[in-house]
């Protein structure tokens, strides 16, 4: 298929970050095209799993990449991996386009914002390592927990709808989700000392 030729078989967080930085600093079109070739087919899959038609999926993917070009300078490689940054942009565009709502987020310039705890060397989560920890934890989840996590992110379903689709009680779905999220956070915390402290 033409659309995916020339795409890298995999992209590490470091490679992805370098590409976004090249877009931000040098307005590098080749780097931008490489990001597109790797992520556009995945983002379109994500959008179609969320109920978009192919043409809606392609359009929202294009809007996502227009935002990548204009917001590249806001990408902070210490805060999020490229895959996560792209996921949040695509998620927000999807909510805008398909649900006509806004994904309301914290305003980083809010004077009310309680600041991050001062970095003490143990508390700083490097986005790249966090992403590795998350991927490993995800791969090690028991099948029932992995399924619920997949459905939560990739089907536009409420937990109640997931419960009836899988024919298990809602409470079971919620506890699988909690367990899965705790395992993922424990994997992150294991690498960063206190970083994964849960409230």
């Amino acid at each position: 298929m033409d659309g995916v030729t020339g795409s890298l078989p995999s992209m590490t967080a470091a490679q992805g970050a370098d590409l976004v930085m090249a877009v931000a600093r040098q307005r590098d079109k080749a780097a931008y095209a490489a990001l597109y070739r790797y992520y556009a087919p995945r983002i379109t899959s994500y959008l179609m799993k969320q109920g978009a038609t192919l043409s809606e999926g392609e359009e929202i993917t294009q809007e996502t990449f227009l935002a990548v070009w204009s917001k590249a300078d806001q990408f902070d490689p210490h805060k999020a991996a490229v895959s996560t940054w792209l996921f949040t942009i695509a998620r927000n565009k999807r909510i805008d386009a398909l649900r006509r709502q806004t994904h309301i987020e914290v305003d980083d310039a809010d004077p009310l914002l309680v600041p991050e705890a001062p970095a003490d060397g143990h508390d700083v989560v490097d986005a790249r390592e966090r992403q590795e920890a998350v991927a490993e934890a995800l791969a090690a989840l028991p099948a029932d927990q992995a399924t619920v996590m997949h459905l939560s992110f990739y089907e536009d379903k409420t937990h109640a709808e997931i419960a009836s689709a899988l024919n298990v009680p809602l409470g079971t779905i919620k506890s699988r989700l909690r367990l899965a999220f705790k395992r993922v956070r424990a994997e992150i915390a294991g690498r960063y000392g206190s970083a994964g402290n849960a409230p």
Partner: protein
Amino acid sequence: MTHDARHHISDELIVSYAAGALSEAQCLAIASHATYCRQCRRRIEDAEALGGALLDALPMTPVPPPDVDALLARLEEGDAPPPERRDPPVLPTAFAGLVAPRPLQAFLANRSWSRLAPGIEQVVLGTQGPASARLMRFAPGIQLPAHGHRGLELTLVLTGSYHDVTGTYRPGDLAELDQRAHHQPVIGADQDCIALVVTEAPAIYDRLIYRLLQPFIGL
């Protein structure tokens, strides 16, 4: 803020928020709590990292090859996403002095308080989609009617405090109650309590008189 929030967002809601499954009103409550709470911001980042990891693992839907110039030409044609607004919203005079997270302030334009009952005022916020968001102001010391819930009820305290069977809630604290929960909030005696209240469905009041009044107050 002089203290850390003690009542936080549940794991289920953090994951749903990161996945983009919540309504706008519920997002407003989550983002408002997270403004006060660095631990929940961290948890949201962790959940979003899950979204990123799952994206990496997705199968690929073939898409047209990148025509970078055509794509970027759209930016020039004014198809660009509008620049993000960084200025603080301007609060109407009715809310002068109100301490509220910015995402919430953005919903207060052209609104004002209306009286619901003695000691209770509200502003219905114009969020899109299911679930409704209101700003509520309660006089010191009043006792709210006992009630159950038909759906999720999220309450974020902005000023003052209240308590019920589940604990005491102060600025930045988020109460998350579902269908199984029943309570009777009592407002702290020392000052007004202003709170963001997000509900999926009207409450179920214990006493008939409140059920009869419900169509008029809409809560």
